[in-house]
C-alpha cells in the first residue's frame, strides 16, 4: 500500500509534529509513505472567503503536484482539508476541464482515521496514552465526510485512554477559517461554549482530527489559564507511554 501524504499548510508550518506522527503511524501499519514535495495549500481559505478564482488557481497546483506521483491513496491528517479536495474541488471545477481531474482524485483522498479504519481495516494500533479525553470531530469530517465513528473506534483501542462524552459535542468550535478573525467575538464565544462542556466532562485531554479546530480551542484554553493537554488524533495513536 502506497500513500501520498497531504500535509495541510498550517500543519506543515505550525504543527509539523502532527505530520511526523502521521508518518510514524502509517509506517507502523506497513504503508509505504511518500510526500509530494511541491504541495502547499489546498486553497480552502480563498474558497471559504468566496474567492473562487484564486481557490481554483491553488487547486490546480494541488492537482498538478499529486497527479505527478503514483500512489494508491492520498492521506491527510485533517478532515477539513480532505473535504476541500474530495468534496469541493469537484464543486469549484464544475463544468470546467479540471472537473474530471478533480473527480478522479477525490475518492482517493482520505482523512487519516478513515484511511486506517476503512481502507486498512485496522482499529488497534497498540497505542498507549494515560488520560481522560474528549474527542472533537471537525464539522467537515462530521457532515461532509461522515467520518464520525472511525476516530472513536481508534481511540477506543488506545490503552489507558478514557474517552468521555461531552455536552453538545456536535457544536462547531468556532474556528471557521477567516470567520475566526472576521467575527472574533462570536468565534470566541463559540470556543467558550466548547470549553465549558470540556470542563464539565472532567477531561484532561482534548483530541481532534483537525489541527485548525485545536488551534482555536487551544488558543482560548491557554488564554483562559487552562492546562488541558491538546493533541491531534495522530499524536495519540503515535503515543507509546504515559504522556
Amino acid at each position: 500500500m502506497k500513500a501520498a501524504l497531504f500535509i495541510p499548510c498550517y500543519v506543515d508550518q505550525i504543527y509539523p509534529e502532527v505530520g511526523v506522527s502521521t508518518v510514524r503511524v502509517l509506517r507502523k501499519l506497513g504503508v509505504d509513505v511518500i510526500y509530494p514535495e511541491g504541495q502547499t495549500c489546498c486553497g480552502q481559505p480563498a474558497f471559504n472567503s468566496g474567492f473562487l478564482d484564486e481557490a481554483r488557481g491553488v487547486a490546480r497546483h494541488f492537482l498538478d503536484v499529486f497527479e505527478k506521483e503514483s500512489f494508491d491513496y492520498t492521506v491527510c491528517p485533517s478532515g477539513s482539508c480532505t473535504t476541500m479536495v474530495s468534496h469541493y474541488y469537484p464543486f469549484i471545477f464544475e463544468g470546467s476541464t479540471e472537473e474530471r481531474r478533480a473527480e478522479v482524485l477525490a475518492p482517493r483522498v482520505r482523512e487519516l482515521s478513515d484511511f486506517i479504519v476503512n481502507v486498512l481495516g485496522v482499529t488497534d494500533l497498540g497505542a498507549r496514552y494515560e488520560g481522560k479525553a474528549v474527542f472533537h470531530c471537525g464539522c467537515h469530517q462530521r457532515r461532509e465526510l461522515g467520518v464520525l465513528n472511525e476516530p472513536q473506534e481508534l481511540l477506543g483501542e488506545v490503552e489507558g485512554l478514557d474517552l468521555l462524552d461531552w455536552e453538545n459535542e456536535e457544536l462547531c468550535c468556532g474556528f471557521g477559517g477567516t470567520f475566526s478573525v472576521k467575527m472574533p467575538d462570536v468565534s470566541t464565544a463559540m470556543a467558550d461554549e466548547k470549553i465549558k462542556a470540556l470542563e464539565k466532562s472532567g477531561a484532561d485531554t482534548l483530541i481532534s482530527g483537525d489541527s485548525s479546530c485545536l488551534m482555536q480551542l487551544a488558543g482560548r484554553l491557554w488564554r483562559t489559564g487552562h492546562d488541558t493537554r491538546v493533541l491531534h488524533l495522530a499524536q495519540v495513536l503515535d503515543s507509546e507511554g504515559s504522556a
Partner: protein
Amino acid sequence: METRKPTHERDTEDHRREGIASPVEGFNERGKKAVQDRELHDAVELFTNKSVAVRNAALHALPDAPELRERAYHIKQQTMANLDEYLAQMADAVEARGGNVFFADDGEDVTRYIGELARRRGARIITKSKSMATEEIELNRRLEEDYADLDLEIVETDLGEWIAQLSGDTPSHIIGPILHLNLRQITEILSEAAGEKLPPDVEALTKFARERLREKFLAADIGITGANFGVAETGTIATVTNEGNGRLVATVPSVHVVVMGIEKLVPRFEDLSTFVQLLARSATGQKLSVYTNFVTGPRGEGELDGAEEFHLILLDNGRSNLLGTEFEEALYCIRCGACLNVCPVYRQTGGHAYGSTYSGPIGAVITPLLKGDEEAKDLPHASSLCGACSEACPVGIPLHELLLKLRSRQVDEGLAGKAQEIAFKGFETTMKSPALYNISTKTGRAVQKPLTKDGSVRPLPGPLGGWTKSRDLPPLAEKSFRELWKDGLRDG
C-alpha cells in the same frame, strides 16, 4: 446594586426599522454586544437546546423522515419550476370560491391594498396572527404611518408576537419570537400593559393575555393571517398554530386577509401531508401543531363559519428574482426555524444581531437575496460554515453552500474590498509556487521572533488582532514538516 436595562429597552436603535426594508450592516458589532449579554445567552441556550432535543426525538420517531425530506425537496423544486402556472391556478381557485386575489410586488403594494380595504370597510381594529411575511414588509408600521387618518389599532395575537409588539420589539426567532426574553422581562412588559403589577407566573400572565386578546378578537373588523402553505389546486390556505389565535383571526372578523409569500405554494392538497409532518416536527418537535386550519375562500352558502370577504395577497418582494438561479433553493424554506436552533452562531448571538426579520442561517441567506448584497454584506459571513443548518433543514436546502455562493457573489460584485482582493491574489500567487511558499514561511519565522513570548505570538495589529485579542496564537515551528522530511524523516 447595578440594575440592568430590561432587554426590551436595549439600545438596538429603532426596532421598527429592522424589517427587510432597512439596512442590516453591523452583524459583527451587534454580535459582539450580544455575546456579552448573559441573560440573552441563557435564554437562547435554553430555547435552542430544548428545540433541538425535541426535534431530534420527533424526527427519529418517524422512520421515513429522510424520504419525506427528499419528497419535500422535489415538490418544492417542481413548484418553483412552474410557479407562474401554480400561482394562476391558485388565483383561479380562490376567485372561483368568491375570494379576491391581489399580486403584490412589495410591501408598499400590500400596505395600499389593506389600507384602502380598511378605509372602504370603515375598519378600526385589525387582529393579526403570526406572519413573517408581514414582519418582512413591516406592515404594521407602514399601515400606522401611511393610513394614520384611519387611526387603526393593529393587534398581534400570537402571544409572543403580542408581547414583542407591546414592548416595541421585533421577533428574534421565526418560531419563538420572544425567546430572547425571560419570565422577569415578560412580566414587566405585561404588567405595564395591564396597568398593574402581575405576578411572575406563567398561568397568571397568560390569563391576562387571553382576557385582553379575547376582547380584540371579538371586536376586530379585519383579520390578517399569514399562510404556512397555499394549495394551488384548491385555493386552500393552511396555517398551523399552537394557540388557536389563527382560527379566531381568520373566522371572527367579517374580513379575512391572507398575506402569503409566493413561495409558500404547493401544487396539490395531498402535498400538505408531507409538509405538515415535517414542519411541526422540525419547528417544535410536535407530531402535529395543536391547530391546523384550512381556509378556502369566504364563507359559502350554508356554511357556518368563515369571513364574509376573503382576500389573498400574494407577495413577491424579490422572490421571483431567485427563480431559475443558483439561489432558487432558498425559496424552498418552510420557516420552521430548525436551522436557527442548531446554528452555533445563532446560539451565541440570538436573532436581533442579524438585524433582519429573518435571522440564523436562513436569514443570512434570504436577507441579501431579497434586499441586495450591499444591504446585507455581513450576513453571509456570519457563519463558520459548519453545515449544521444544511443537515437540519427538513426540505434539504444546502444553506451553508448558499452562504458560500453569496460570498463568492460579493467577490464578483467587488464588494469584498480591496484589502481582501490583494490578500487573496497574494495567497494564490504564493500557494501556486513552492519557492514563494518557502520564502514567505521563512520570512514569517524571522519576523515572528521578536513577537513571540512564552511560546505564543504577542497580540498583533491588523486582521490577526481579532485572533490575538482573545486567543493565543501559536508561532510557526522552527522547522516545518517539509524540512523535517528532507532532514531524514523521508528515510525512516
